[in-house]
């Protein structure tokens, strides 16, 4: 099969495969610098308390301690990742707002000394009543966490499109359901860490980050430095899933400690501290009301949500908007209303986790759809097909959907899972369910307001043409962007993948890119890389044309061979022409950048959810439910994805595996739990219950043909979209297997057991 591409569309091995299988890959915590100190942050044991005094004198006296700092030693400027609501300080000044809030930091010669020193810092508190129940956060008599945010309202959204009331009045059937999504945590296996060092007034930070750019921006702002004086670079990253997108506090505290001591400082969170710092998925209360006509066509939807934001904003403003915004993507309906409150509580702040804001509302909506199908005595797939979005349509909240092969994905999922047969004939205790999903391929607007391009790339060809290096700010956090972008570069240049090297995610060495979030890099960074590659190719062809005695337009380059299109035997090698280029004109460099087109409507919050392209997915899951224990066994699952043109099929399917796996964990087991004082009860990987190899079902990942006109080579995202249908698909399978509808996540054995018991007693 020759689709006309030499490099893309092939499952080349990862560019970082060898260093990762040999243990040579250095992650931030693996780096050592001469004189490097170890630093840690002291955190609050109380959920809500006034700080009366902090005494660091004993800690300072401990041999080996080089610096102890509190809010007095650092800028008091508030920061955050959502510019509209900067509400965090590097260290707390008056009050602590959750168990784990930052109070002071120590740098010492080794870990043992650091831990000892932390114990010697004496903090006097006046404990205040804590707000732990998000449903009571807005009550009249509930104390406020932040004086600037009355009644603990962090974000309030009211959007209304079309006429929902009229749609309900005209509906054949209107149904309301209430769902609850739990607080989950990304739990990357690599803990957060950062190493900071100064050279005069220039700061360098190695960080386990999804976005060197945002870190650079926020660190520079915090310390009053020009951005050029702050270099942020990532090493290899041990997973992020949203949790490493915003500054963690380690970078700020580390920079301050490094300045005072004049030595490099390595800061890190241990597993418990990661859970306490959190920034995972919000707990969310979701009421959905939908009206359908007698054929099941959706006429209107009302989503009325409330989110537990925890103590700070984090990325929560966007999470809150996303929760409602993306509900309109997979199904086509004209009337939509969305109300949301994101409230503060004295719990760790929540932020962006894989599928940002969308997976739980998707769980709610997919469960709700199944209930409607049940009410109308329709097969759940039939109801979905009647409402599935079509290409070239616009959502009620003004998102333009170009490519969309959702119907084909649903049909394929139905066929490969043997749905029609299984839906009616599975034995008792077994069930099969479907969920649909969708996601943005990159956000239409950056996190803070700026007119910078979203992505940029440079390609430098080695002087003799024997290799080429791609410089990009895009961040490989494990998803494989370094590999995919090198494939794209080679394709655009007419080069080979094996001769590509990459320098990525270093604010000094590579050009700007916003980083790894919102599933943006394949499309957006890819667009910049494609342009840079084409720029290289153009320069080479222009130089080669006279020597081949032909017009540039009649030349092409593929696989390192420059040839005349009409008579391919007339050719010169890439390397030979590249060398000639260097001799005659200097370095052979290609450049590219990408800015998305203006997207979205004019209403408040219209930017969130805009994207040049949307991915779609249909997932079917088969489960067994033990009626005695309520235990769920996920047996088999099928994902069919519409993700546009695929650059690297093996890496793409691997993304789907991981996305389903995370969604499965959140469906059945994962939840961060707190005691009545706001202390986390399960701040470790086994009690939190990250699924193991024994939990993963037989899994099938398939594709449908699709091409996105708005993207380089027609690509779309996959990494986050594939997690959006999972919880709904599993919830619906559990319902089919057990006959009980559990409306809160996770769908634990206990909840199922209780519901089955109630059902028997009825």
């Amino acid at each position, binding site marked *: 099969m020759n689709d006309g591409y030499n490099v893309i569309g092939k*499952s080349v*091995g*990862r560019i*970082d*495969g*060898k*260093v*990762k*299988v*040999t*243990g*040579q*890959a*250095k*992650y931030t*915590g*693996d780096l*050592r610098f001469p004189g490097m100190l170890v630093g840690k942050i002291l955190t609050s044991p109380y959920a809500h308390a006034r700080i009366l005094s902090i005494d660091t004198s004993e800690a300072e006296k401990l041999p080996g301690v080089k610096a102890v700092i509190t809010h007095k030693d650092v800028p008091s400027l508030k920061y955050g990742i959502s510019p509209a609501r900067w509400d965090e300080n590097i260290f707390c000044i008056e009050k602590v707002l959750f168990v784990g809030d930052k109070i002071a930091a120590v740098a010492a010669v080794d*870990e043992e000394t650091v831990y000892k020193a932390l114990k010697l810092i004496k903090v006097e508190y006046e404990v205040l009543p804590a707000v732990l129940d998000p449903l009571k956060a807005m009550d009249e008599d509930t104390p406020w966490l932040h004086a600037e945010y009355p009644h603990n309202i962090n974000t309030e959204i009211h959007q209304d499109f079309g006429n929902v009331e009229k749609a309900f009045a005209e509906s054949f059937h209107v149904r309301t359901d209430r769902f609850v999504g739990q607080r989950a945590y*990304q*739990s*990357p*296996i*690599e*803990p957060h860490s950062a190493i900071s060092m100064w050279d005069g007034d220039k700061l360098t930070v190695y960080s386990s980050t999804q976005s060197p750019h945002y870190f650079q921006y926020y660190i520079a702002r915090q310390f009053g430095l020009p951005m050029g004086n702050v270099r942020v670079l990532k090493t*290899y*990253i*041990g*997973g992020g*899933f949203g949790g490493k997108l915003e500054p963690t506090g380690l970078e700020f505290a580390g920079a301050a400690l490094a300045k005072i001591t004049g030595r490099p400082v390595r800061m890190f969170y*241990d*597993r418990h501290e990661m859970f306490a710092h959190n920034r995972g998925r919000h707990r969310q209360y979701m009421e959905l009301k939908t009206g359908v006509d007698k054929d099941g066509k959706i006429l209107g939807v009302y989503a009325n949500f409330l989110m537990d934001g925890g103590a700070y904003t984090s990325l929560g403003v966007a999470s809150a908007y996303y929760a409602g915004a993306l509900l309109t993507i997979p199904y086509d309906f004209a009337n939509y209303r969305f109300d949301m409150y994101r409230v503060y509580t004295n719990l760790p702040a929540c932020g962006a986790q894989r599928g940002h804001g969308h997976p739980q509302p998707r769980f709610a909506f997919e469960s709700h759809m199944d209930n409607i199908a049940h009410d109308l005595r329709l097969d759940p797939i039939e109801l979905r097909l009647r409402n599935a979005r079509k290409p070239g349509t616009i959502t009620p909240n003004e998102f333009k959907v170009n490519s969309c092969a959702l119907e084909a994905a649903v049909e394929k999922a139905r066929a490969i899972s043997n749905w029609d047969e299984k839906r009616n004939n599975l034995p008792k205790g077994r069930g099969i369910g479907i969920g649909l999903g969708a996601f943005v391929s990159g956000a239409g607007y950056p996190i803070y307001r700026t007119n910078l391009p979203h992505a940029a790339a440079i390609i430098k060809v080695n002087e003799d043409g024997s290799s080429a290096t791609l410089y990009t700010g895009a961040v490989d*956090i*494990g*998803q*494989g962007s370094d590999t995919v972008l090198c494939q794209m570069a080679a394709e655009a240049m007419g080069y080979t993948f094996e001769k590509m090297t990459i320098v990525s995610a270093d604010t000094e060495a590579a050009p700007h890119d916003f980083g790894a979030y919102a599933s943006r890099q394949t499309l957006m960074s890819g667009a910049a890389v494609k342009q840079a590659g084409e720029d290289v190719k153009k320069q080479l062809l222009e130089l080669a044309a006279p020597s081949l005695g032909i017009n540039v337009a009649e030349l092409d380059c593929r696989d390192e061979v420059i040839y005349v299109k009409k008579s391919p035997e007339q050719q010169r090698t890439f390397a030979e022409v590249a060398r000639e280029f260097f001799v005659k004109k200097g370095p052979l460099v290609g450049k590219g950048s990408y800015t998305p087109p203006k997207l979205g409507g004019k209403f408040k919050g219209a930017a969130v959810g805009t994207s040049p392209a949307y991915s779609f997915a249909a997932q079917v899951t088969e489960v067994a439910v033990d009626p005695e224990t309520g235990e769920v066994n996920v047996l088999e699952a099928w994902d069919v994805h519409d993700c546009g043109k695929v650059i690297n099929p*093996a*890496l793409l*399917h*691997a993304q789907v*595996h*991981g996305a*389903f*796996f*995370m969604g499965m964990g959140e469906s059945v087991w994962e939840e961060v739990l707190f005691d009545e004082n706001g202390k986390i009860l399960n701040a*470790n*990987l*086994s009690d939190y219950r*990250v699924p*193991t*190899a*024994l939990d*993963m079902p037989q*899994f099938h990942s398939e594709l449908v043909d699709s091409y996105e006109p708005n993207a380089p080579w027609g690509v779309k995202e996959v990494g986050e979209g594939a997690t959006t249908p999972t919880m709904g698909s599993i919830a619906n399978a559990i319902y089919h297997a057990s006959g009980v509808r559990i409306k809160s996540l996770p769908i634990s054995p206990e909840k199922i057991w209780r519901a089955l018991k109630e059902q028997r007693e009825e």
Partner: protein
Amino acid sequence: MPEVLRDSQGSKHYLINLNVNGDTYTLAVKGNALLVNVLRDWLDFTGTKKGCELGDCGSCTVLIDGKPVNSCMVLAVEAEGHEITTIEGVSPSDKLDRLQESFIANAAIQCGYCTPGMILAGKALLTHNPHPTEMEVREAISGNLCRCTGYVNIVKAILAVADENPPEGGESA
């Protein structure tokens, strides 16, 4: 019993010989020094990762006398007299081990943080059981958490090597 030394503060240190990847290193460590930290911080075997220090994640897996062990749960002094293999010792030359090749070929790596531990767990399994069933592979790596791959391709990569192993009890060609 290893020889005891005292530092200027009077704390005890134990003089131990650690055999790592076939080489012997002589070190004076405190009684509470964890093997994972000694490997990483003193000997620079940073391929041994740390994800939890609680025995939950398996990213610190090393082989001790061929058996996979969480090195965050072992004191350095306990490891004396045993053969320790870290990821750096899996392929003695630039040529990769078959299982390492298989991880690359089967796209079993994403962020790579669990990879050293997974490969060592897989090596240990294949050494004593050259033809594991899929269930046996899953069991063998069930103490190694991966947050990226859903384990699908990791299981595949280990089984692919098993498939190439000569059949049990059969003639080797």
